[in-house]
């Protein structure tokens, strides 16, 4: 046995021989459990890309799986791990490599925290125009891998729309890149989109380049009490009316005994006079209902209560007693969705009324082995009703039994074959995150 207690041929021994220490893998809260029964027990934390490449090569020799981890906020995404491996912590790769304010482009290492990047960009009046949940803990690499959602996607799109280039360490340990540092580029295949949402199963994204936007001059939030399903759907219609350009439009509230309670929240970003006008238009569209409150936001601390709740509901980070379902719906079918949700039962809900995505947070009492019959029945019914209305549902966090009760992705058999071949080409040994995206 080696000094670490591992067998001489183990990955730990091999890494120790090259000067890499391993340590227990113990992310905060229940994050580790979300990887399932095969969650890694130890982690290695390379200091830079060169070290990371060495780790990948050693893992190849030892036939060890690697589980890239950033802020550990999205470990529940996808399927549970198919086999145990070593966690590959990326937090020391945290440099902002290159920020060109004149070009509105930044290149940043994967382990850099989103909040750190935004703070630096804000010094130049710029931002990466997304607002993810878990903004303090989430890392750039993790957000790319997990296709992090954004609360202001209605105006700015998601991270996918801003990703210009990636640097990736492949299963062979080679560092490759795709895309570039220009805002418009069609040279080479789009590997940015391929790695975005791939859960790190096709390679380790070690750095990414993004298009930036100027910080909006004004950020106006309006919120009011949601008075029933009809009012929620009507608000969605008002936000989609010609000439209305919301940054966000959400219903945020609770499902309770066949009732929906909560608030409608809209945000407008742009020139001050413009957002005031947009807000007034929305108020006029809903004349006669409960009055809107409004506030010009000047930072996270000023977020209205409903927006703070949105971040809590949509968080994919550890919650030992809860589960997060992500909803996809056609905005025109919002009334059917709302009816299905009310039949489903209790939970916290947040619906992006403009884009047709949303979140349903459930209490599950931390059950791991099986789902209660009533929850299973409710999930099946909700799933069926959403599908009938052209929508879809998947589980983003929660107990394994619940997550596996719902489909993860929607590839048809022909596409699944392409996906399998892509995996064969890029990671034939299923070195990275085995099983997270299915076979």
């Amino acid at each position, binding site marked *: 046995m080696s000094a670490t207690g591992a067998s001489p041929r183990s990955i730990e021994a091999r890494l120790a021989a090259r000067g890499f220490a391993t340590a227990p893998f113990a992310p905060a809260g229940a994050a580790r459990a979300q990887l399932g029964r095969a969650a890694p027990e130890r982690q290695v934390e390379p200091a830079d890309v060169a070290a990371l490449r060495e780790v990948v090569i050693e893992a190849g020799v030892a036939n060890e799986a690697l589980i890239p981890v950033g802020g550990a906020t999205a470990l529940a995404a*996808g399927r549970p791990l198919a086999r145990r491996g070593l966690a590959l912590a990326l937090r020391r790769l945290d440099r902002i490599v290159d920020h*060109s*304010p*004149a*070009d509105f*482009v930044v290149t940043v290492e994967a382990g850099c925290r989103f909040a750190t990047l935004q703070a630096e960009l804000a010094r130049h009046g710029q931002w990466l125009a997304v607002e993810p949940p878990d903004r303090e803990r989430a890392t750039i690499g993790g957000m790319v891998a997990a*296709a992090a959602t954004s609360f202001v996607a209605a105006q700015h799109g998601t991270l996918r729309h801003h990703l210009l280039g990636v640097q*990736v360490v492949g299963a062979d340990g080679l*560092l*490759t*890149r*795709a895309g*570039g*540092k*220009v805002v*418009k*580029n*069609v*040279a*080479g*295949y*789009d*590997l940015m*989109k*391929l790695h*975005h949402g*791939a859960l790190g199963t096709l390679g380790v994204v070690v750095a990414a380049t993004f298009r930036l936007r*100027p910080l909006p*001059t004004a950020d106006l939030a309006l919120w009011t009490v949601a008075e029933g399903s009809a009012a929620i759907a009507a608000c969605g*219609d008002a936000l*989609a009316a*010609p*000439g209305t*350009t919301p940054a966000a439009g959400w219903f945020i509230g609770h499902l309770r005994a066949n009732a929906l309670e909560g608030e409608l929240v809209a945000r407008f970003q*742009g*020139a001050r006079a*413009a957002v005031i*006008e947009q807000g007034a238009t929305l108020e006029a569209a809903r004349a006669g209902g409960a009055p809107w409150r409004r506030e010009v936001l000047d930072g996270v601390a000023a977020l209205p209560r409903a927006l703070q709740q949105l971040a809590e509901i949509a968080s994919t980070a550890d919650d030992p007693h809860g589960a997060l379902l*992500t909803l*996809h*719906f*056609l905005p025109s079918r919002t009334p059917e969705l709302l009816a299905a949700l009310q039949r489903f039962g209790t939970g916290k809900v947040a619906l992006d009324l403009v*884009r*047709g*995505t949303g979140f349903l947070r459930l209490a599950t009492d931390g059950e791991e082995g099986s789902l209660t019959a009533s929850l299973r029945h409710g999930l099946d019914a909700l799933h069926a009703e959403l599908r009938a209305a*052209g*929508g*879809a549902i*998947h589980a983003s966090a929660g107990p394994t039994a619940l997550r596996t009760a719902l489909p993860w992705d*929607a*590839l048809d058999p*022909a596409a699944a*074959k*392409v*996906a399998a071949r*892509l995996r*064969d*080409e*890029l990671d034939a040994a299923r070195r990275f995150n085995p099983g997270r*995206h299915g076979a």
Partner: protein
Amino acid sequence: MSFAALERLVGRDQVLTGAAALLPFESDGLTHFRARPRAVVLPGTTEQVAAVVRWCVETGTPFVPRGAGTGLSGGALPCATGVVIELARLNRILEVRARDRVARVQCGVVNAELSAALRPLGLHYAPDPSSQTACTLGGNVAENSGGPHTMKYGTTTDHILGLKVVLPDGEISELGGPLAGRPGLDLVGHFVGSEGTFGIATELWVRLTPNPAVVRTFLFAFADLDAACRMVSRIVADGILPAALEMLDRQTIQVVEASVLRAGYPTDAEAVLLVELDGSAPQVDDDARRVRAIGADAGAFETREATSAEERLKLWKGRKGAFGALGRLSPDLYVQDAVVPRSKLPEILRQVRQIATEERIRLSNVFHAGDGNLHPNISYDGRDHDEVARVVRAGDRILKACLAVGGSLSGEHGIGMEKRDSMALLFAPADLDVFARVRHAWNPLGLCNPDKVLPGTKVCVEFRPGVTIEGVTH
């Protein structure tokens, strides 16, 4: 080779053979690459496309998908031993869901015709390449096409939600769909821009964009190209996001003004900058005030705002028709496409002019300044072998200059056949190997649009005699 089997699949009159019928399909918009295919097949349904592809697989016949043939990088260049699958007959708008802001269309729908059909609904399809009155949406998907309004609205990939694809083995797959944010591998995003090498998209779910409440279009004229570039940088640095920010240089202005597309550009200007602002009235008013101030500060000697829809259309007609107008100068036009970081525009434009002088070529610039996307256009006579050689050399030098300042090989025209051997200038062998492997995953037999995008030695095209293309054997 007998094409009776193909005729049975799509109908006798939908298979073209013989030199005269095949002539229009010998090249796309990049005319100095030509090859005559064995046949051109015109399927009318996705199932027919799939049947044709399966026939190609069974017979080992290479196939090249083609839309309107407006591409400028040789992406739809036929393979001399294969067939062209012409998709123009799949030209129906199948479904428009206005509230959901999505539509399902066939790949042969012409770009501008979709927006025209959406006009009564107050919506449009945002990517608007200069060829939009002819190019098809399927071709736009293949090339990830851009256009003047991509600065604010993004390129094709930002507007495609789902695809029905005939894979290179003839299987039909539905990727994505009208719903936003589904989990799993983003095969839609990966497919867009694959230049017809991953399969044939026959149906598209496209995102629709609401028409802006207000549009204001400005012309700024400069006596100095550098000053115009400075204005571009200032607009971007000041946090203004115009819908479009387009530049024309003196040569282009002169040619446009001497043509039927006359737009009223000042003919004494070294550069004209077109700035279009859109959005709500207060937003546009605020931006307009700042843009005017920046223009004055940058030294514009004339500032003009289009005061009517007709006037705005005229300004744009000159810009979008510039390539056509440049055709008056000489028998052939080579439209180069490269992209640089915006801050490098003044420097690269100086180099481009220097190269043009040294290579003794007629060069004009009309380009998407807001994106740093250059289009140096070289007018030449393809019958003059010496001139052609200088044109090709100049194009190569311009590309290398762009790469040297951190740019890329193509902003929107694609790699195709034209730049496949230049890929090694931008990407390392390991990068290219990854590209080759993902292509192999989609297209394992290599029959779907072979030889494009990536460097290689196998070339199944015929070049015009006397043309010397660096790095390509002929």
